[in-house]
């Protein structure tokens, strides 16, 4: 940072808060022209918030932004564009039925009026310069994810951007596509553009960038030159020292195999392989933690077990706690699984989307699990209402009444209703995805206690978490997943944060290194 002769963009002491949550605290960093800077950090470390301030989506509460040495006020995306800053978001903003060219010129007032053929020629020229392989007349709905990303990148280049920010650009790409993208970025660097890439993949940082700035929980940790650092140092900067949380953890009692997952492969809707040869065992009376960068396949894994995700190959075996009988859950619907006598409870990460119906009250939401019981045409409302009342009292749900639509409750209370309902079904397997996300400390501890009580009752608990400190104190074993592969299984009592952090970022290693 000592040489500032041609810093394209410099941030000084940027702070941004959302309510009580500090998203960025005193962040200072700079990017030069002809340089690639990586911003490294875990989920929720404030990387995207920081970049959104540069691209005009948020405005910083404190601090200054300098562009080419002059202070700049970036109050809207249009201001950012006037400073020639272009951001490529993780979620593409494209019109599916339009061609690449139509998408690129959309909303852009060019000299010489509207002429698709001339625009297509310009796009071809840009493609040639940087090595994109893109047919300007191809429709977006016919494109692969990486082609769509190219359209987004060309869109900002077409508008003359020379500071490019890419938000986790490789999250959706295959290794070959990633390599191709990196070649393009290197060519842009040679062309004198300043490039910022947000990522949490260490090997990409090391192979691509000139310098790395690390954020942790919104705080700026430091910037190092890539050539003078290594994976271990970066991991430590990223995950930090261990914090003690004092979550109680008992020894597993008489653990037995409850759920065995063998060589599971599956693809998502776009045909991308999302789970690769996943095998593991969940035991009764034990909490199995799943750690990993968000979107590494955790969701699909749980949904596959719950019967919501079709498998390409592999088996999922369930062992009945009483009889020890083995049954295969593969290709079964949730209803079939229930009819087989498997008591599986699932707390999905999308609470109001998959877990509860927002416009229905607590009682009705209880009935979503029990409406099939009884033989009468009419449903009995009393048992679910009693259950709702019981959950409200037991879990301290703050609600005006049982008749309040759950949509109106706060996030923590919604989660308590959902977890309460799932536990009330007295499961033998309990799966919870990010059950404490968005909850305050007290509610979080309440949820940990509930999970612990289930564990003592002999339930096989699977806990998908993002906070490594919590995983390390709550779980008996921790399985690490990276890009759909199991990258390691560690003992929750002896493992270290660095160990898990390294396993988390060890994704498809090697292939993109050279």
């Amino acid at each position, binding site marked *: 940072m000592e040489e500032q002769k041609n810093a394209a963009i410099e941030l000084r002491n940027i702070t941004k808060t959302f309510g009580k949550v500090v998203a960025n605290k005193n962040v200072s960093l700079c990017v030069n022209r002809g340089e690639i800077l990586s911003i490294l950090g875990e989920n929720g470390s404030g990387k995207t918030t920081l970049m959104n301030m540069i691209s005009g989506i948020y405005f910083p509460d404190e601090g200054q932004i300098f562009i080419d040495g002059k202070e700049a006020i970036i109050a809207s995306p249009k201001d950012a564009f006037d400073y020639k800053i272009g951001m490529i978001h993780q979620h593409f903003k494209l019109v599916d039925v339009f061609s690449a060219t*139509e998408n690129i010129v*959309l909303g852009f007032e060019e000299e010489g009026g509207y002429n698709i053929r001339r625009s297509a020629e310009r796009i071809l020229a840009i493609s040639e310069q940087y090595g994109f392989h893109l047919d300007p007349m191809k429709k977006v709905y016919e494109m692969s994810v990486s082609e769509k990303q190219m359209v987004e990148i060309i869109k900002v280049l077409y508008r003359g951007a020379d500071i490019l920010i890419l938000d986790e650009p490789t999250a959706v790409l295959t290794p070959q596509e990633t390599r191709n993208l990196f070649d393009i970025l290197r060519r842009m660097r040679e062309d004198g553009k300043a490039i910022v890439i947000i990522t949490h993949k260490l090997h990409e940082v090391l192979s691509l960038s000139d310098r790395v700035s690390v954020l942790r929980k919104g705080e700026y940790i430091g910037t190092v030159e890539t050539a003078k650092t290594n994976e271990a140092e970066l991991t430590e900067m990223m995950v930090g020292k261990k914090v003690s949380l004092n979550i109680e953890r008992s020894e597993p009692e008489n653990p037995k195999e409850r759920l065995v997952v063998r060589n599971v492969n599956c693809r998502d809707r776009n045909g991308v392989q999302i789970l690769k040869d996943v095998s593991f065992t969940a035991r009764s009376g034990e909490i199995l933690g799943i750690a990993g960068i968000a979107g590494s396949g955790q969701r699909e894994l749980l949904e596959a077990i719950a019967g919501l995700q079709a498998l390409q190959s592999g088996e999922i075996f369930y062992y009945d706690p009483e009889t020890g009988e083995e049954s295969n859950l593969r290709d079964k619907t949730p209803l079939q699984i229930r009819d087989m006598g498997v008591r599986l409870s699932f707390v999905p990460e999308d609470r109001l989307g998959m877990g509860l119906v927002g416009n229905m009250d607590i009682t009705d939401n209880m009935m979503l699990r029990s409406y099939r019981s009884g033989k009468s045409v009419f449903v009995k409302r009393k048992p679910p209402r009693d259950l709702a009342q019981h959950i409200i009292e037991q879990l301290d749900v703050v609600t005006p009444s049982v008749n309040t639509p759950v949509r109106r409750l706060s996030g923590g209370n919604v989660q308590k209703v959902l977890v309460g309902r799932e536990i009330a079904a007295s499961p033998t397997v309990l799966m919870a995805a990010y059950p404490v996300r968005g909850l305050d400390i007290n509610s979080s501890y309440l949820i940990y206690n509930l999970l612990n009580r289930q564990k003592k009752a002999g339930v096989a608990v699977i806990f998908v978490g993002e906070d490594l400190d919590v995983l390390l104190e709550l779980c008996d074993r921790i399985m690490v997943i990276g890009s759909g592969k199991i990258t390691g299984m560690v003992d929750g009592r002896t493992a270290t944060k660095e160990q898990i952090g390294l396993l988390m970022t060890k994704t498809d290693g090697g292939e993109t290194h050279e």
Partner: protein
Amino acid sequence: MIASFIQRAVVQGIPLLFGSTGEIITEKSGNLNLGIPGIMYVGGISGVIGAFMYERSLADPSAMNPFLAVIIPLLTCVLGSLCMGLIYSLLTVTLRANQNVTGLALTTFGTGFGNFFGGSLIKLVKSDMPSISLTATSNCFRTTLPFANKFGPVGQVLFSYSFLAYVAIVLALITSYVLGRTRVGLHLRAVGENPATADAAGINVNRYKYVATCLGSVIAGLGGLYYVMDYANGVWSNDGFGDRGWLAIALVIFAIWRPNLSILGSILFGGLFIIYNYIPNLGMSDQELFKMLPYVVTIIVLIIISIRESRETQPPAHLGISYFREER
């Protein structure tokens, strides 16, 4: 015989063409305006009111100024249907009301509005018949090209129509060109396909929706005017318009959202609509079966486009959904 059939089919088709061109423009902005039947009806009665006022203000209707006789009903018709478009836009775009409910309400409202004022005018002239006749105005509207008769059947098929019919065809062609070949068209299509993307690209989504909906309503309203002044020879009777508004909406689907195709589609629909007159020895009940044909054809087209699953023939992706920027 064939020439006169085609000519009648075109005359039947023109109100549908106006309606479908208007609805295509509206739907391209993502607004599904099911109020089109009501809007066309209001367009018709508004024109009738204008013509009625003008005719009554003259001592001798046959001495009317032909220019004024055309321009006054045109203006009142545009004004009436524009108001309907504004109501629809205000409710669905600004207040984000449900588009289907709003549209159906406007259809009900428009029909009631037309029948109320139609009935009032009929009472004013103290007519024996349940209709009002604006023959003088209609004659001005129905002035055809002078040389139409010189070319025999060809002239009858091509040149025998009044100016509004040619306006309808020209409007459809212009709309086709604007949608496909201009920046405004690109922006409008983006708004209907993916308003969030359009918004991010700096396009004023609400303005496009308002303008497209109001313009669409005005064009559809002209269809109502054409029906009264040309097709019905200036005779307004309540509920005489029938279900042409729904046919216009069916025509939008039939033409897979392309105004140039809807020119041909409108003539086909017009022909199917009157074909029972040209088939000898049909009983009353059989006639009704034949009147069903345009709808049957529309359903067949719907089935074909959903089987083909081609993205180009699908309705705009955000059709019928209100856009709210903060909603994710």
